[in-house]
């Protein structure tokens, strides 16, 4: 059974900023256009995710489906009610991340970016190719200040 939680709904709608995101009338165009739904309809259905988000079902944050959207925006571009599914899934993922519910691979990437500034490390092989091509090289420590902007200062 899914518990409708008006408080969670409020959190969600506040995080999303605009209530316009709740205009879904469940026509199913998003699912029909979704390449992931097309492959694994039982595991990922944007229409159902919208419905649960819309109701304020908190269990949604634990749903593995949350991590299957590629953010290709086919749904957004085809929605007759201008519902931005990607914004909604991003918000849901943010909430899941805050509660430690994100998959490790996602956490790893986030940490790579926030610690080193880049998703991918610079390997010696590539450094060599770049040198051969005469391209400038930026090392991981060469982006000063980036971590400072992420510090949350209180007061």
């Amino acid at each position, binding site marked *: 059974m*899914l518990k*409708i939680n*008006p408080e969670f709904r409020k959190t969600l709608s506040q995080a999303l900023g605009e*209530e316009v995101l709740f205009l879904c009338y*469940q026509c199913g165009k998003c699912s029909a256009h979704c390449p992931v739904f097309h492959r694994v309809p039982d595991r990922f259905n944007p229409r*159902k995710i919208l419905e649960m988000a819309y*109701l*304020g079902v908190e269990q949604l944050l634990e749903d593995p489906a949350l991590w299957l959207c590629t953010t290709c925006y086919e749904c957004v571009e085809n929605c007759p009610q201008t519902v931005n599914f990607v914004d909604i899934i991003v918000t849901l993922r943010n909430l899941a991340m805050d509660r430690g519910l994100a998959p490790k691979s996602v956490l790893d990437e986030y940490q790579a970016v926030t610690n080193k500034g880049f998703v991918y490390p610079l390997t010696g092989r590539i450094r060599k190719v770049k040198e051969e091509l005469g391209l400038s090289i930026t090392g991981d420590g060469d982006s000063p200040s980036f971590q400072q902007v992420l510090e949350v200062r209180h007061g």
Partner: protein
Amino acid sequence: MPNLKNPGTPKEEPRIGVYVCHCGLNIAGSVDCESVAEFAKTLPGVVIARDYRYMCSDPGQELLKQDIKEYRLNRVVVASCSPRLHEPTFRRAVMEAGLNPYLFEMANIREHCSWVHLYDREAATEKAKDLVKMSVYRAYHLEPQIEIKVPIQQTAMVIGGGVAGIQAALDLADTGYHVYLVEKEPSIGGRMAQIDKTFPTMDCSICILAPKMAEAGRHPNITLLTNAEVENISGYIGNFNVQVRKKPRYVTADCTACGDCSKACPQTAPNEFDVGLATRKAIYIPFPQAVPAQYIIDPELCLTLSKGAIVCEECIKACEKKAIDFTDQEEILNIEVGTIIVATGMDVYDPLKNHDYGYGLFPNVITSLEFERLINAAGPSKGHLIRPSDRKIPKTVAFIQCVGSRSVRDGNEYCSNICCMNTVKDALLIREHWPDTQIFVFYQDIRAFGKGFEALYRRSKEEGVVYIRGLPSRIEEIGDHNLRIYAEDTLLGKEVVLDAELVILSVGLIPRKDRDAIQKILALSLTEDGFFLEAHPKLRPVDTAVGGVFLAGCAEGPKDIKDSVTQASAAAARAGILMAKGEVAVEALTPQIVEDLCKACGLCAKVCPYNAWMWSKEDRKPPVLIEASCQGCGTCGAECPSDAIVMRHFPDEAIYAEIDALTEENPERKVLAFCCNWCSYAGADLAGVSRIQYPPEVRIIRTMCSGRVDMDFVLYALSRGIGAVLVSGCHIGDCHYITANHQTKKRMERLWVRLERMGIRKERVQLGWFSAAEGAQFAAKIREMVEILKTVTPEEIEKTKEILAKQWKVPQAALRATAFVRPERRMDEVATRPSAS
């Protein structure tokens, strides 16, 4: 006038033209129209027969007119749709060609044939041929008739003082007609006065209604009769006599509505206007904007009036204007009007009887109408939405849609039309009052079809109202009178649960509980849903089958304010058209009496629902007809033991001729159905329009009323070898001719006894009641009749013929009916029909 001195050779040789209409593919799709026309050419008296794509088109009518001139036609048969649709069209066409309109006849090969036998072209074509033959035989007996004109009184009555009634009254009054506006309650205003805001504009309901109420109250052409009820109506189109019971108010027109009396009154009771959520005194005004702005005393609550002795005079003491009158008496008013608009409105579904969703058990489950009063500034909570259990502001509110609507189980199958938008509006109202309230709407479909509706629906979503597709299964009360709602979200296919602090049941609209009184008084038909039936759902949506009576507002079906007002204006216009003409032609269907045959028994006078036959036992003279009173049902004609009554346009000969036609070939494989013009024939038409398929064995003969069906008609059909006979009419109580179908019922009961006594299986003769809305039921009955038909053996048919030959005498009229096509019926054997007086 019927004057067949020499039957068999009518006064003029019949020259009949037959026109078989294709109606595009509506008929031609399942009937071979060409072969039907070819067949018609072989029928006696037929001079010309054609098939044509659209007979009702201008060229079609032109063709008909030209033929009348070219071939000197004196009878015309059009085989096309129902005469209820195009008979007036073709009557006008033949008239323009110089033929009396009563010499026109229609064979209904669309509603009664092609549309109900879509997949059996062969059988449908054979049936169409039979129907054409019946019409040709009948046409032979048609005679020119002259319609009488009756004057129309130029006053109107509007029954019901809701927004529809008010609008209709104002429109008629502004046109210049005097209007009596009758309202049962102490004030006009109706349901709209109870509502807080209106959708989709969110206008304040009473703010836009009150000026109209006031205008109706002071209009010089409107006589307002509040606290009054229609008791009886007699008469007919243009000339109705209405009896109105005006109940005592006990407060005179001197009342200034200061309210001092009410403050002084010691007696309290629940206030009806606030649906019992607040109280009122024994002397009260229903709501501040009431019209008339005049207090009223509830005689059952008032200490003095209920005891019949002066025990309390607080109000009299308080009233400076001396406007209180304990001696006020009930009045019966007799009012003559030309037209009547029925705007009696609706009731709301009461969830108390089934305790729907715990209504009546849990204090915080309320109805949408109760909500209107709770959110209204003039309501019991001064417009602050609070929940009943603890008067706290609810933080979570759930609406449940379709309570009492769209449910076969609860008896209201229909959609109540307004509840979706009403909930959308109510949800927005709550957000307006308490922006932090979380609102959930459990629905099955949101129907936001009207102008501006979708925008309001969208706005509610923008405001954060949550719509859950699925109706709850149950509600439990948890602590603090909060409510736990269980439902399936049908979009997820999962069960969801929500805790809410207030639940509002979006209750549907139902026909008024006291609707039967008006329905019986005016002999109006009802739809299956119980609302008043319009004359035609598309083309005459505000007319009723009763001339001079029109419908407006929710009496006709659930609708919103805008539609009610629109319909009211339409009804006013329709009534105005009649009154502006000043007179109306009445179909020439009244009877004539053949005095030579009349035994002056008085049976006709006894069975007439209108007391139209003047006859006295003492005189022993043939009765005299009051033309203006007679409505032409033909019950007298059926009952007359001497066959001395000739029904104009529906004479016995014409009906026997139709029976002859349909029994000429394979009668044992056919069912004859007599249908009355107003209900069962219209029901059969509806089966056609709805494309409800039934077996092709049935042949329908139309009479104005089932009361016209003479016992001899049935016996004659049996004597001709028919397999089974159905006599059908309006439901008892719904008869268009007040009580004429009571005679049908009695007659059929006598007939069954007689059949049994003769040794004829009475199951072969059935009686059925079908309203104009019961197409499906009509079709089902035909299927049942065909099952009966299958049990009838050729031996049984022969036996029946023998029995009747011995025990029953063929009426003279039956012999006359087809003498013209039957050389074997020697003219000299057939008695001449004496001339009618």
